[in-house]
Every structure is written in C-alpha cells, then in structure tokens.
C-alpha cells in the first residue's frame, strides 16, 4: 500500500499550506485555501516533522525515539504519508 513512499524521500508541507497548533482543541490543524483538516495526535506528530530536510527514515527514527514501544510505528507513518500525499497536503522536496 505504501510502497510509493521511499525511505530516502524528503517531504514538506504543500506550498501555501500551514500547520498550526490549536491550544483550545489540543491538536494540530492543517490550513489551506478553502479548507482545513484537524489532525489527530499521530498524524500531527508525523506532519510536524516534515520540514523539507529530513528523510522519511529520519522521521521514523525520530518518532521511534519519541514513542518507544509503539508497535508497527513505521507502517503507520508510511500509510499516513501515503494518505497525506494522496490528498496533496504534502509534497516531495527531493528528486530520487
């Protein structure tokens, strides 16, 4: 399912998108023209790490360090990225 997401790919938010922490809601929101998405805890943790510099492998490693013992974390991250890419929330910043 997520074989499109390569571990040395680098992602960042799509142009003109903004990720913002909403204190009142205690979650991240993704804001863009004509829309917004409330990100649940996991999705927020993944997307906030996409800075256009780190590779997918870096992001997975960081998350594993931050949330040790979470099973299937890598698979979850990959499918989250796959979904975000499919919705054009994020874009790949390097060419492989």
């Amino acid at each position: 399912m997520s074989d499109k997401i390569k571990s040395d790919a680098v992602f960042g938010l799509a142009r003109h998108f903004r990720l913002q922490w909403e204190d009142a809601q205690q979650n991240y929101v993704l804001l863009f023209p004509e829309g917004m998405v409330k990100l649940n805890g996991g999705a927020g943790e993944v997307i906030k790490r996409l800075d256009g510099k780190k590779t997918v492998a870096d992001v997975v490693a960081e998350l594993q360090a931050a949330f040790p013992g979470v099973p299937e974390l890598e698979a979850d991250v990959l499918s989250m990225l796959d979904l975000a890419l499919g919705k054009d929330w994020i874009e790949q910043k390097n060419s492989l």
Partner: protein
Amino acid sequence: MNKKTHSKPLPKPFWLLAEITYRCPLHCAFCYNPTDFVNYTHNELSTEAWIKVLRDARQMGALQLGISGGEPLLRDDIEEIVAEAGSLGYYSNLITSGVGLTEKRIAEFKRGGLDHIQLSMHDISKEINNFITDTNTFELKKKVATMIKDYDFPMVLNVVIHRYNIEHIGEILEMAEQIGANYVELANTQYYGWSLLNRAQLMPTREQLIKAEAVTNKFRERIGSKMKIYFVVPDYYADRPKKCMNGWGEVFMIVTADGTVLPCHSARVLPNMTFPNVQEHGLEWAWNESPAFNKYRGDDWMKEPCRSCPDKEKDLGGCRCQALMLAGDAELADPVCELSPAHGVILQAIEDAKNPQLAAQPILFRNDKNSRKIIDGELKHLTDEFHALP
C-alpha cells in the same frame, strides 16, 4: 416536540465570514447580497468593533476567515483588519473583485499575514465581463491577477457561472491556467438576493450544464493536481438539496457590515426572526445562546416530508431561505428536493430556462438606485413572485 436538547456539545464556528461592507463598485447581476443592501451602507461597524469581532471569534475557535463584502477594499482600514487577523492566527482570505487593489496595499497585506486572495473573474471576453458586472473592469482584473502572483499569494479564481459564460468554461479554464491560478471555483449561480430576481435571465439549460461539466472533467484530467478545480453544481438541477452552510449554526458564522450575526448569507430574508448584533450582544451569546442560531440547529424543527425522511441527516432539509422564498415557509423541505410538494416551482424554473424570451428580459443590476426602488416597493411586480424579498 421536545425543546432543544443540548445533548451534543455545541458546535464551533470554525469559519468566520466578515462581510465588512456592502458598498461595491461592481453591479453584478448574480450578486447574492441582500436586495435592500443600501439599508446597511451607512451604519458599518468601526475598525475597533471589527477587531473585537476577530478576537472574540478566534477565542471561540474560528480558524478560517473570509473578508468579503460588497468590495472589502472600499474600507480604508482593511490593512488594519488584515494585520489583526494575521496576528491572531487566522488563515485569512480576501475575497475581492480586484477593484482598489494597488501595489502598496498588496505589499501591506503580505506584511500583515494575509494567506490568500480570492479574485472574481467573469469571462474570457471583455464584453461579457463588462456586461454582467455593469462596469468596465476586464483589463483591471488581469492586472490584479498578475499582482497576486507577483506577491506569491495562492490564487483562487472564483468564476460565477450563468448562461452568458457557461459555454466558455473551457476557455475560462485555459485563462486560469495561463495566469497561474492554484484553485478555480466554477460556482454555478445560486439564486439568492439579486440573482434570484434575475434567475430567468441567468439560469443555464440542463444541456448547457451537462456540456460544461464534461468540459471541466476533461480539463481536470489534463491538468492534474497543478490546479484544483471545484465545480459547484447548481442545486436546481440536483434531485436533492444541498446541506446548506453545512448545517445551520454548525460551522459558519457571518458578521455583516452593520454587525448583524447570521448563520448564512441570506438569513435576513426569514420573517419573524431577530438576528443578534455585535453592538448589543457578545459573539459568544449570538452563536451559543441566541434564539435565532438555535432555531434551526439539528432537526427538531422539521416538518414532513423531512421529519421522517431517512436522508434527513445528509442534507438537513436543504436551505431554510430557499424554502421560504420559493415555498413560502422556512420550515418546509427545500423545494429543490424531489420529495417536496413544492418541487414544481423548480421544475418550472428549469422549463423557463429553455425559453429565450424569458431569458431576454432586462436584467436588474445590483446598484443603489435599484436597491432603493426595491425597498420603496416600486419593483413589486418583480419581487412578489418570491416571498420575503423586501
């Protein structure tokens, strides 16, 4: 019928639309502003009042902000309003005809943190642009589009579709691609306010609509994700109504030029309702407590056929204003619904769209003079057909 039970937590007004002025240099035939808008052009909220609205709404959870009108650029304090929105963390959108946008102002908007600009365009031809807006604005809009690009704002083009431009949709999309639009809204006219009065003149035929949709889909396939295209289907040609505003008092909150707080653009037409005004009440009271906002929340208010309809959660019975204007009672099903006993009025409008004589009647343009005439009852022969237009 049980009284409103707040078993569910109250929804939050995630989208705030600030209709900061009803003054407008354009006179569009399809304008959905109230037909009596001249009543609200001399009592606009002050800068301080708008800033308070922005702060209070943000506190209540609002995130998306549309700054619209009329033409918002007619306010001298728009830069201040934009900067306040920026510092509060709104994702803010200036909805404009482009008239009044200068280099100096757009630079100021960038500094103030404006997120995007939605520019209205009308056609590829100067003639139709100038005809339907009753102004000479064609060249100006192209210049403004370039400015928006130069300042790296995402460009959302909004094109209201009607029988005069629906056959040019392919060329309109090509123009959008040429000027580098990121999003294009092909918004088929919804019939409220001025556009309702001009419905027979504006409504396309079903045949035109089907062709336009096919052209749009083909273009979409070619362009892919480079440009997002929204095709807003005209509800008259659907079998079921739209879930108007995503539900009454569910997500959208509109504050109008004079401070009236509304759950939808045209709610003012509803009789026997008093909408709250920020000059008398806090926004929080308006959204959470006011009788007007609670009146059509949920589905307790419904009559048949909606009340026992298995689909009622899907569309919440459609639009209250449309039910009133076309069927005479805001609590009936939106007549767009094929199950509505009043659905015949929609079928008649569709039938009328095929009649070139009706379409050729003179258009009533949205301007001060016509608004006054409507208020004074001089155009009763036009307004009488629709309930509740003043």
